[in-house]
Every structure is written in C-alpha cells, then in structure tokens.
C-alpha cells in the first residue's frame, strides 16, 4: 500500500509526509501493528512532519523512538510540527547566556 506518511516507531508522536498533504484530508499510515488515521490541520509539505497525537507544550518530540526535541507550544493533532513549535535540547549556547 502506498502510504501518505511514514512513522518509524509506534511510540513516535510525529510522522513524516510522503507527499504534499492538504488541510482537511485524512492521512492514513501504519506503524508497528497499528493503523493511524490523522486529519491534517494545515498544508504539510513533502518531507515535513505533523503531530500524530495532540502534543502539549513542553512534551518531548519522539521520532525513530527517540527524543528529537521538545514542544515549545501546544501542537494539535494533524498540525505542522517543525521549528516554529519544536526546540532542540542540544548545542544550546543561547541558554547559557540567558541563565547568566
């Protein structure tokens, strides 16, 4: 089956679009043994991520079953998950400055 998106591990909370996705469309994909149907909230460009579940602010972003960052805002299910609402936890020289 040609999937619209790919999610690596069943515990991930983001998936990656395998084609340009439109707002309102239902995106269907399989991860592990589970099938997901996510209603896309806003246009998602090929290769970009969207939230598979609702992700509260401050939650770890999980991809490949691993922590890849943290939500800096509430990310609704089906919304674009990227630099506008995800921050890195590593290489943050800027945090040292703020703390000083």
């Amino acid at each position: 089956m040609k999937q619209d998106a790919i999610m690596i591990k069943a515990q991930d909370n983001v998936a990656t679009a395998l084609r340009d996705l439109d707002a309102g469309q239902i995106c269907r994909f399989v991860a592990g043994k589970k099938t997901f149907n996510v209603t896309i909230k806003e246009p998602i460009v090929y290769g970009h991520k969207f939230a598979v579940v609702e992700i509260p602010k401050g939650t770890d972003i999980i991809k490949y079953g691993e922590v890849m960052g943290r939500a800096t805002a509430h990310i609704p299910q089906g919304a674009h998950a990227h630099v506008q609402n995800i921050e890195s936890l590593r290489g943050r020289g800027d945090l040292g400055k703020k703390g000083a």
Partner: protein
Amino acid sequence: MEFLGYKREDGGVGTRNYVGILSTVICGNEVAEKIASQVEGATAFLHHQGCCQTPVDINRVNDVLIGLGKNPNLATVLLVSLGCESTNIHKVADAIGATGKRVETVVIQEEGGAAKSVAQGILLAQAMVTDASKQKRVPFPLSELVLGLKCGSSDTTSGLSSNPVVGILSDLIVAAGGTSIVGEVTEFIGAEHLLAKHAKDEETARKMLFLVERMENRAIQMGFDIRGGQPTGGNIKGGLSTIEEKSLGAIAKAGNAPFQAVYEYGVKPDVKGLVVMDSPGREPEILTGLAAAGANVIAFTTGRGAPQGFPFVPVIKLTGNEKTWKNLKDHMDFSVSSVMEGAETFTEAGERLLAELIDVASGKRTKAEISGYTSSMDIYMVGPVI
C-alpha cells in the same frame, strides 16, 4: 566479489590513477591549479591553510598533506610550495616518498616566480602521467576498499531511506573484510547514545563520546543556538527541525557493524572494519579528511541535492528524495526513493548500491567527476589564524 583497481607500492589499492598536484599552502594554489589544468590525468588539491597558524594546526596541515599524498588513488605526487610557509614541505615529501611513491617538488620562490614554476610543474606532471598511465587495473577483493561515509544537504528522506541503505552498504563492506569510515561528529549530537551501543568495547565508546562532547562544547562556547548552522537552513526547509533529528537519521549510515576504533581528523585507520573519525559535517573538510585517512571511494547521501565531489576520490551521490532524483539528474548517481515507497527493501537497495560501488571503484565515472564538480576541499582547522 572483486573490483578492478591499481596496486600501489605500499600495498594500498587505488580506484583512480591520478598524478596529484598538492599545494602545500594557500599561497601555492594558483600555481598548482594552473599545472593541473594543463595536464590531462593530473588533479590539484587546493586549500586555505599552511601559514600563520598555531602549531596544532600546522602539524595537522603536514599530516593531512601526507595522508592525501599517500592516498592510493594518487599514482605519484607533485608538491607546490611558495617557499616561506609554515608547512614542513620536506617532512611531507619524505613521508609520502616512504611509501615508494614518486614525489616531486616545485618551490615558487626558488624557481623564480609563478610562470617558471607552472612551466616546470607542467613538464614534471606530464612525465609523471606518462608513467602512471602504464599501470593497468587488476582484480582485488572488496577487503581493499576503504569506504568513506557522508551525508549532505539532508532532508527527512535522508534518515528514512538513503542513510539506512548506506548503512547496509557499510555492513557489506565490513563483512567482506574492508574498512568503512564514519565522521561528521556534529551529526552524532543527540544520537550518540545509540552509536555508543555499537562500540567494540566501553573504552572505544568513551573515545567516541569525547569527540561528540568536544564538538558540542565548541559550538556552545559561541553562545548561540546551533540551529540554523546545524541543522542548516536547507535542512530546515527539507523538514528537519533539530540537530537531534538530523543526527538520529545521520547515524544510520554507520549500519550495524561494531565500530573498532576512534581517530582524530584525517588519520589513517590501522584496523579494518567500521571506524569513527573526528570531523565536522561540512563537505570540504570531511571529504578531505576521508581522503587523508585513505578512503578510496565515498558514498554520499543527499536529500535536497548536494553536488560536491572530491578531486581524486570518486563520490557516489544517492538520494531517497524522488523530486531531487528527477530534478538534479546531472548530480545524482543513484536513487533509493523505492524504499521510501516500500517498493524495495533496505537490504535489496543496499545490495544494488554495492554493485554500483564496485562499478565506480572499477572505473565507472560518477556524476561529480563527469561534471567536474570536484573542488570541495579544505583542511579542518581547530585554532585561529594568527
């Protein structure tokens, strides 16, 4: 399985047979470039180092030039020196010559200027090409391959398709008794705990973790969020949000083989199998580091379409992004978009890539070589210019 290569005096095997025109300092670049441009079969290595630097970096310039000169893809070497640089040209010439390789030198201040140096260099290089061209390719086992790994202009397809396929390739080369070198330590940040599990032992894991910590601290000391620098602006357009996400995809290149040892930048491995080498992720520095470490072929994954090659080591470009494959035909050698769609397994794509690698090692020209997009080269420095 075998490939067709060139036997070298020190036991190495070349996949190419160039006369290398190596500039020993930034100030020799013009002459080295002119010599190489006038001699079919010669190629120049140019860089921006070799003077007004701390001893740490000057020693590195010496060592990297030695490593490049020893690379089995060079039949013989012509060093181009200005004459007053900090690079120790005698040390470099002697160390390369110790392999049994012919080494010649042109010193601009001694020859009487650029015009005379170019003329002298052309005549030397012509004779060296004549000698090199007598050599024939003969069969060698895959254990003679030293594979360099690289990803560039990555997007989310890199971690989902091309990097895991290169991981399979790396495992196949290691299983055949060959060597595979993974660098780009910046792109271990956030994934080093996974890579550490692949270390031969705890000591080797600790050495790798030290490189990652050193690289991250270098970035942090600048006082900024590294995002924008890593991941790059292009990575972000391609959908990568954080360095951790990029790293989690990037380390898939290393496959599943245990890594046997950890080296500083540009150091030739003294063991077979998968090894880790310190290097940043930027193309000129890592491609040069891999070549100095003796890589005779490089597999380079890209998402958005990185065109860079290297003067004397073939660089195979592969992508899992079907748009890039269609859009950048003159730069891409190999597509793995099939695995993104589930039409081909990672193992099948990895075996297909091995066949391509054997062809390229045996003389098939890469897109970067054909288009002449091969000047991504420089030496990774750690200290200031002074």
